């Protein structure tokens, strides 16, 4: 930490941090987000090409990369980007940072950097592959792929990120509660109430100087309050997991653990969205050159939002309803509550469109990205409503539709806002103009065309039953996965253009004569959008309507030489493929599982197989005892005896 920060503590409480230091702080957040985003994005490219069977990667590395990609993009955007830009939005809305807030903001950066490093090490180097939700108790059932130490360090790293979220929330609330807040009554509570937008709903109880609450402060205060509440149970779960690494007798009920996880997991998605809304409230009026066209109803929506946000987590658990639990009641109650939070988005989109409508709007890469993000916000919200509806969720839960939805939301809404904010804020933060506006426009179009192609294909695959989180998808989905690749390349190219633009800008370079926008003419936009729709939707739906060929059974992969089998052994073959084949490679059955011993290399006798089935695995202890019993076990033993070498 710099010496200046330490000295700041001695200043009187009314002292504020110079704007130059806030700029430097936010710039540091921007550099971190860009670096992490590029790495996490590259992991996404690696996974998608592997699924399309170009250069397949090993299964556990796929899942470890998936874990790092999910958490990494969150760190990049949910942590560094929206957190840093959040401070800058507050500064530009007239809220001055004070010494404690600055120290917390600085600490947040460091804690999150260390946490991110821990996540990278445990996933990519130590093989932790529990997915970003690390659904308890999966981290402790690694099938021999990673050790409890990796689980412990991983949990500790995520805990650090959680601490970072708490310090960020405190820094935001500390700044909102400062004397620069326009609350007439003053005092921390009144100021935070005004920050929450309550002054719009009850202007007499919470009078505001000048009568207008600065809109950008509302989403930031709302999410800061909510994340303080939502992060604590997650922290408790992580502490229990660390304790279990040390003493295996300390455990937690898995259903409770899942509720704790999603109690955090839902609001943390809004940690991405709400600060993005704050960026909109600040920048759209600036580009439209008129104030935000908002009615009182926007204040009501935010009051509903701050409450609803922490009581709708179970929409991630609609298909969990174990016998003799209340989970189904919680799930049903949370459908209407989830619906209520869409009001914030629906009304904000309306206000922003109304502000922009027939205005003398300034078009540049920043405003272009923001408007593209606005379209992404609304359309991704529509697929979100599908997910939030139990009766529809049953048919899309854990399919690639969900993957389509959150990449739509993350890249084409949140990502777009973050890029827009970067194009708008970076010159203010580092005092240098962008190297090239034209490259900014290229970044926009490559990201949008590639991103929509990518998500639309996921949507189609999901509605055709494509399962989520499969390192290797069933063969019938391969055609569409391959169709995705050109779009993945476009997204990747867009980000390389962005990275180049950032580096040149940091070096203080300027590109001459590049103010003419690319595809800024509305006719060109229409042409590109139409071409995109035709290029993706038509083949996609043709493939979908043609009822993709039925999935090939796994054993078709590499059948060994046929042997004449007794009828009992034939029954055993089927049981073997379904029950044993996913872990044991056995060429006669064409199975290739790599968890248990390779059965082609073992001398197989009936007695030995029966003993293994009865007692379970004797090696790493992964194979449960008595997976099969009685005649079934004998049949499998006979089969292996007859078919084995």
């Amino acid at each position, binding site marked *: 930490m710099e010496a200046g920060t330490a000295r700041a503590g001695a200043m009187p409480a009314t002292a504020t941090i110079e704007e130059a230091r806030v700029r430097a702080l936010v710039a540091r957040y921007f550099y971190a987000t860009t670096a992490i985003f590029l790495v996490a994005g590259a992991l996404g490219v690696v996974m998608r090409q592997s699924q399309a069977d170009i250069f397949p990667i090993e299964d556990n590395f796929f899942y470890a990369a998936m874990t790092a990609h999910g958490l990494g993009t969150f760190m990049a955007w949910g942590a560094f980007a929206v957190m840093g830009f959040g401070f800058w939005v507050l500064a530009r809305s007239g809220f001055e940072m004070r010494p404690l807030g600055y120290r917390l903001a600085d600490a947040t950066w460091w804690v999150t950097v260390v946490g991110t490093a821990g996540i990278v090490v445990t996933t990519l180097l130590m093989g932790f592959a529990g997915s970003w939700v690390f659904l308890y108790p999966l981290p402790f059932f690694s099938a021999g792929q990673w050790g409890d130490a990796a689980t412990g360090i991983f949990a500790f790293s995520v805990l650090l990120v959680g601490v970072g979220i708490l310090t960020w929330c405190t820094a935001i609330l500390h700044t909102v509660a400062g004397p620069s807040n326009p609350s007439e009554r003053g005092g921390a509570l009144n100021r935070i109430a005004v920050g929450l937008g309550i002054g719009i709903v009850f202007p007499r109880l919470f009078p505001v100087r000048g009568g207008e609450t600065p809109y950008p402060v509302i989403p930031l205060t709302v999410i800061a309050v909510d994340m303080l509440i939502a992060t604590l149970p997650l922290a408790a779960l992580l502490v229990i997991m660390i304790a279990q690494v040390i003493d295996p007798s300390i455990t937690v009920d898995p259903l409770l653990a899942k509720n704790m996880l999603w109690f955090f997991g839902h609001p943390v998605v809004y940690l991405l969205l709400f600060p993005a809304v704050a960026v909109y409230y600040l920048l759209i009026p600036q580009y439209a050159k008129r104030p935000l066209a908002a009615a009182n109803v926007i204040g009501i929506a935010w009051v509903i939002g701050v409450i609803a946000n922490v009581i709708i987590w179970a929409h991630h658990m609609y298909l969990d309803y*174990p016998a*003799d639990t209340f989970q189904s009641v919680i799930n*049903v109650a949370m*459908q209407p509550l989830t619906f209520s939070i869409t009001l914030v988005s629906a009304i904000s989109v309306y206000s922003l469109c109304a502000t922009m409508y027939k205005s003398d709007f300034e*078009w540049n890469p920043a405003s272009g990205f923001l408007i593209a993000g606005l379209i992404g916000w609304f359309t991704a919200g529509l697929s979100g409503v599908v997910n939030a509806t*139990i009766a529809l969720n049953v*048919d899309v839960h854990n399919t690639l539709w969900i993957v389509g939805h959150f990449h739509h939301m993350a890249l084409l809404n949140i990502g777009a806002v973050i890029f827009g904010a970067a194009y708008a804020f970076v010159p203010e933060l580092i005092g240098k103009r962008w190297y090239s506006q034209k490259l900014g426009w290229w970044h926009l179009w490559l990201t949008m065309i590639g991103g929509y192609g990518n998500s639309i294909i996921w949507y189609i695959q999901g*509605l055709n039953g494509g399962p989520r989180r499969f390192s290797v998808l069933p063969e019938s989905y391969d055609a569409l996965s391959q169709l995705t690749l050109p779009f993945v390349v476009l997204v990747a190219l867009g980000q390389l253009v962005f990275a180049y633009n950032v580096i040149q800008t940091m070096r203080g370079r300027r590109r001459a004569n590049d103010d003419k926008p690319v595809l800024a003419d*509305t006719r060109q936009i229409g042409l590109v959008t139409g071409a995109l729709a035709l290029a993706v939707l038509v083949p996609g739906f043709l493939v979908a309507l043609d009822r993709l060929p039925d999935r090939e059974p796994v054993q078709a992969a590499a059948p060994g030489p046929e042997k004449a089998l007794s009828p009992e052994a034939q029954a055993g073959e089927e049981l073997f493929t*379904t029950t044993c084949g996913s872990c044991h490679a056995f060429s006669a059955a064409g199975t290739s599982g790599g968890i248990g011993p390779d059965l082609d290399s073992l001398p197989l006798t009936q007695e030995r197989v029966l003993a293994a089935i009865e007692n379970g695995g004797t090696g790493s202890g992964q194979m449960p005892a008595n997976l099969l019993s009685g005649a079934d076990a004998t049949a499998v033993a006979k089969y292996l005896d007859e078919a084995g070498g």
Partner: protein
Amino acid sequence: MNTTQTIIAIGFTALCAVSLAIAWRVIRSTSEKSRRTPADLEKIRERENVYAVGVVVALFALLAITIFSTPYGKSADGGSQQVNVDAFQFGWTISPTEVKAGESVEFNLRSKDVQHGFGIYRGTELIAQSQVPSNRPGSDSEFGQRQDLVWTFDEPGTYEVLCLEFCGVQHQGMQGSFEVVP
């Protein structure tokens, strides 16, 4: 695609098309000559309340149509045929492996270890799914809590089972099947 998935595909595409058309109109309006006066802005604010009411009504309508179709009530009814499904890393033990078409089946889902997802497929069509609750580590019982999925199969044939909750390194290989006979 099953019926619900087809409805989702059509509904989502249609609503996206409408929102794109509106976005197009708003974007075009910024290059028009006639700029709006401040008085019009006031009108916009009034309309925002009307719009908000419209959104609430639409959400209530969707709620009223869908809230009674949950998988939870069905499971309480039980099924005329019982099938035990035991999930483990990384496979399924399904017994019996044959059920009759046209009569309801109650799948009793249990897991020996982590959480799994019981997804029933015909070809690429996802027919039905439910989560399989995980077992608590170090627990004395062999299985975690039970969860039931009740379903009636109309068409005879082979149905495949895929795991629909990420469960580890061989998640994608965790397959099973059962027969529906006339």
